[in-house]
């Protein structure tokens, strides 16, 4: 494995290698001295063609905790707004001698393009491309589920080699536009979990029947019958509500009534079930404040775990010149 482009590329062994390494990284982050010398002298470029705060900061924190230098590049106010192509941007960065590219792009497939061409010959990490993939998000979600749904089930470190066999995960909301759901379906399937995607028919993409997940339009029924161990609420982008934005559903109120995680649905979940959200949240729309702030919410743990998982990915792709061979 030279790049991390898609959660679907990860074998069971590779996924566990990343999650186990992330646990080792997490331990180092409980120290007073959080910085490891591991990637000293290496530079990582955060190449962000699309707005993102938490993912970029998380990658930046991860690289810095491993002592790598970080160069942040955002398309706004850069040569891209002057019309520079991805190819020229990549070749320019290559000429500057960087060691890895973390890329977010509005076009699905941009990270693949970067990895497969000879524009730049360094590991490429996909930080979200279009509606395609967001593999580190799926990894941090799996890391969080492993801590909360296996072993002591209290968020403490998971056992080495633990997977998610036998667990059921419901992913709820805007399935159509979400790269988080695509990555999660791939990775959760690899780790042995069962996935149900839930949303209004207008927000389930054509072709979802071929995913390694079941499809449902009825959240209450999924909670009652599938008894999910985790529910992952996806952000509903407000711009999709109006007729101009596609008119995927009649009104925010109606969406919340059918698919929002309110207090009643929270209470109907199994006692051990956790509530997840990749952020940023629309409180009152897809998730109620009661659910977001409940003790079952792992939303802040997901943010913390994101740093450990990204440290693990950077370590595994960069530490050895020979790369990960799992």
């Amino acid at each position, binding site marked *: 494995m030279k790049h991390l482009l898609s959660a679907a590329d990860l074998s069971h062994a590779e996924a566990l290698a990343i999650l186990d390494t992330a646990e080792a990284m997490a331990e180092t982050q409980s120290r007073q001295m959080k910085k490891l010398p591991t990637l000293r002298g290496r530079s990582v470029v955060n190449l962000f063609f699309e707005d993102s705060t938490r993912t970029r900061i998380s990658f930046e924190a991860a690289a810095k905790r491993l002592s790598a230098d970080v160069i942040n590049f955002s398309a706004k106010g850069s040569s891209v707004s002057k019309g520079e192509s991805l190819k020229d941007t990549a070749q320019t960065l290559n000429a500057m001698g960087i060691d890895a590219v973390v890329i977010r792009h509005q076009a699905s497939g941009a990270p693949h393009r970067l990895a497969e061409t000879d524009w730049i010959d360094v590991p490429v990490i996909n930080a979200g491309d279009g509606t395609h993939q967001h593999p580190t998000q799926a990894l941090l979600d799996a890391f969080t589920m492993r801590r909360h749904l296996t072993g002591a089930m209290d968020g403490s*470190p998971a056992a080495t080699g633990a997977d998610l066999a036998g667990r059921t995960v419901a992913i709820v909301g805007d399935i159509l536009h979400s790269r988080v759901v695509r990555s999660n379906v791939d990775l959760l399937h690899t780790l042995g979990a069962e996935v149900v995607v839930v949303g209004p028919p207008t927000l389930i993409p054509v072709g979802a029947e071929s995913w390694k997940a079941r499809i449902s339009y009825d959240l209450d029924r999924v909670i009652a019958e599938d008894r999910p161990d985790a529910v992952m609420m996806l952000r509903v982008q407000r711009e999709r509500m109006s007729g101009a934005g596609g008119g995927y559903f009649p009104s925010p109120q109606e969406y919340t009534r059918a698919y929002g995680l309110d207090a009643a649905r929270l209470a109907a979940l199994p006692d051990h079930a956790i509530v997840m959200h990749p952020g940023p949240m629309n409180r009152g729309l897809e998730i109620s404040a009661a659910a977001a702030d409940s003790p079952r919410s792992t939303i802040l743990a997901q943010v913390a775990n994101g740093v450990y998982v990204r440290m693990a990915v950077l370590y595994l792709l960069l530490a050895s010149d020979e790369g990960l061979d799992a």
Partner: protein
Amino acid sequence: MSRQVLSDSDIARSLKRIAHEILERNHGAEDIVLLGIPTRGVPLAHRIAEQIEATESRVDVGSLDITPYRDDLRSQPMRAMERTEMPLAGIDGKVVVLVDDVLFSGRTVRAALDAINDIGRPRRVQLAVLVDRGHRELPIRADFVGKNLPTSRGERVLVRLAELDGTDTVEIEDER
């Protein structure tokens, strides 16, 4: 071709002696923390702790992964990180005894000293190894040695421990 240089009873005797030497050098078991370096230093640290407990009192045992501090990460195939487990009481002001199976170049110990520096400030750091095979590349020596084993640089020293390998033995394998 490999030949055995330590049997299970040799290993048991060596660890028992190391335990006694640690107690002698430090005038008792007070403040001692044994930190095993994964993989095989960890069970060795636990065995030495058992011996110390049998003669004096309980001591803290932990493990210290030094992988992120290695100086050969780039040139070697990818190494998996191992877990670090620090005793709850930490290592500040304690006497840390690092435990490893084989002392060779000294680079692992150098990395361990860096790791300790990031975790806390022990009063003293000592080193216990089951086998010292020579060929040091850094100014590092062990305080407690199970067996000094003259080797040539190309030979391999194979330590097997019951906890991980089902049997206790140390063998030397000829260069190929």
